[in-house]
């Protein structure tokens, strides 16, 4: 009994001693924290060195913490002090915490496309402390990008987008690794680039690239956070992760070319890709940290005009999918040889609308020849078949605007204008790039306007070859 009592006393003494030590440690921690709060730029704790637990190689690969590691402290083997201060509001989230931040700092994420979607993705991923952020883009910054591609600044117009984006990311967070891939992602380089990363974010702007990235992610077993935006709508999902389908499971065959709208044709409200890009960053963070439920097997549909977000349930990955299905024979060699532009019949770029060739040469004139007609005072009517909202942006004066979509019903208007223009006036048809003008001339010739001709290359050629002051859009 007596021996038991003695043991009890010894334990109580030990407990008392340990509690006192803990209080002292807590006091030191609070002191360090307050020093850190007061002096964010410097690293406190000069006088406290002995009491600070040294960092044991837990640098998570980020540059900043390596250089400061010795002065940082790691409660419970946690994060270095400078990371704790920078990401404190993340650490305070019970669902995220130290574990979430650590996983983030150990993850590598590739953002394909530094445009309207990629801008907020890269900015947020850099700011939140992803260990390694890769950015792929082969384009240069253009002035007409800046309304939505908010990572780029005016001073970077003409410079590579990857450089502009990477510089912006480094300015926000010098402690992460930012890698520039100044290429357009292609089947010949995609495997090599993508395999270096844990997660891929598709922030591109065209259909063949979307098929290519999805196939590549299936081959390399990478989750794919895919976003798209056009006009006033956006879409978002996570492919090939937790049983979710790949892009080909959902869309085994590509849509007809005429159904592929481009931002450079149809327009896009700047903040719409911004919204989708922010959500892509969020999903990438969730996948990287395994926090929450990523948007797998579901798709988010955003309609900015009606301010509605709808989340729908998608099919699972298809066992018969030619790429991710269990009997798929698609190899890395197949991938490298696959012609995605031919498969989708559209280019790996947002800029070049495929040009059509519908008319014989005799039914077309160049814009320089048209200029001569005008200078020679030849009687004619210039018919502009662009949509009205295009015509309102800029037009050649005088010209008659009848959009192609209503040309048939407005033929009497055209006839009346031709009559007023005098004896046997020429009919010259114009559009933005010289495609719709060909369709219009073909239709007009069928309707008996035998002299109708279209201007090759449309207003784009006019601006290049005749009137350099004509506004480009």
């Amino acid at each position, binding site marked *: 009994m007596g021996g038991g009592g003695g043991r009890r006393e010894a334990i109580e003494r030990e407990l008392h001693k340990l509690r006192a030590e803990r209080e002292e440690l807590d006091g030191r921690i609070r002191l360090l924290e307050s020093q850190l709060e007061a002096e964010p730029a410097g690293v406190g704790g000069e006088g406290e060195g002995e009491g600070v637990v040294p960092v044991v190689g837990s640098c998570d690969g980020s540059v900043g913490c390596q250089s400061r590691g010795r002065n940082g402290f790691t409660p419970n083997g946690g994060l270095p002090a400078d990371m704790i201060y920078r990401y404190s509001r993340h650490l305070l989230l019970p669902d995220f915490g130290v574990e979430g931040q650590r996983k983030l700092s150990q993850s590598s994420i590739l953002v394909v*496309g530094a*445009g*309207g*979607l*990629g801008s907020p993705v890269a900015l947020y991923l850099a700011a939140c402390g992803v260990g390694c952020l890769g950015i792929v883009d082969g384009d240069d910054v253009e002035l007409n990008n800046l309304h939505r591609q908010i990572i780029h600044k005016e001073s970077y117009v003409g410079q590579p987008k990857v450089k502009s984006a990477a510089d912006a990311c480094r300015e926000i967070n010098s402690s992460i690794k930012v890698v520039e891939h100044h290429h357009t992602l292609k089947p010949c380089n995609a495997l090599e680039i993508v395999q270096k990363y844990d997660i891929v974010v598709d*922030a*591109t*702007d*065209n*259909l063949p690239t*979307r098929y290519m990235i999805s196939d590549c992610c299936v081959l390399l077993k990478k989750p794919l956070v895919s*976003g*798209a*935006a*056009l*006009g006033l*709508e*956006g*879409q978002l999902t996570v492919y090939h992760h937790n049983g979710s389908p790949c892009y080909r499971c*959902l*869309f*085994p*065959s*590509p*849509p*007809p070319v*005429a*159904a*592929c*709208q*481009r*931002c450079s044709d*149809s327009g*896009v409200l700047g903040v719409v*890709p911004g919204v*989708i890009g922010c959500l892509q960053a969020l999903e990438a963070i969730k996948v990287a940290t395994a926090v929450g439920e990523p948007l797998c097997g579901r*798709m988010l*549909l955003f*309609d900015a005009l*009606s301010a509605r977000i*709808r*989340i*729908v*349930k*998608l*099919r699972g990955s298809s066992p018969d999918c030619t790429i991710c299905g269990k009997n798929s024979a698609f190899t890395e060699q197949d991938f490298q040889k696959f012609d995605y532009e031919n498969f989708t019949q559209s280019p790996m770029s*947002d800029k070049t609308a495929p040009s059509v060739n519908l008319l014989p040469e005799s039914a077309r004139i160049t814009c320089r020849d048209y200029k001569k007609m005008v200078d020679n005072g030849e009687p004619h009517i210039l018919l502009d078949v662009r949509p009205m909202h295009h015509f309102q942006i800029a037009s050649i004066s005088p010209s008659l605007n009848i959009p192609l979509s209503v040309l048939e019903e407005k033929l009497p208007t055209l006839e009346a204008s031709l009559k007023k223009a005098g004896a046997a006036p020429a009919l010259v048809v114009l559009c933005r790039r010289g495609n719709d003008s060909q369709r219009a001339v073909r239709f007009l010739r069928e309707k008996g306007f035998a002299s109708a001709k279209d201007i090759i290359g449309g207003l784009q050629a006019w601006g290049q070859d005749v009137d350099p002051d004509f506004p480009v859009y």
Partner: protein
Amino acid sequence: MHLTLEFGGGLELLLENSTKVHKVEVPPKDGQATVTMRGLLTWVKDSLIKERPEMFVKGDSVRPGVLVLINDCDWELCGGLDAELEEKDVVVFISTLHGG
């Protein structure tokens, strides 16, 4: 049968005034009690689509690149063309976007 149809991702451009939401009354085919998705597609093509029907249908289904959702669920999970619709169902046709 009373249904709400929604068109998005550019498909609305094929409809009158580019209206996205259509509350419609779709009659079952003769001798049938319900409307199937197959029947609905035919009805939409004949009654709502104003131009370029090839931008909406291909063969007896929707064209590639269109997602069909019945009450916010992929129609592939509901039986596809053979899915039987119920009173007040919401059917969404949405073209996938590629821009960014």
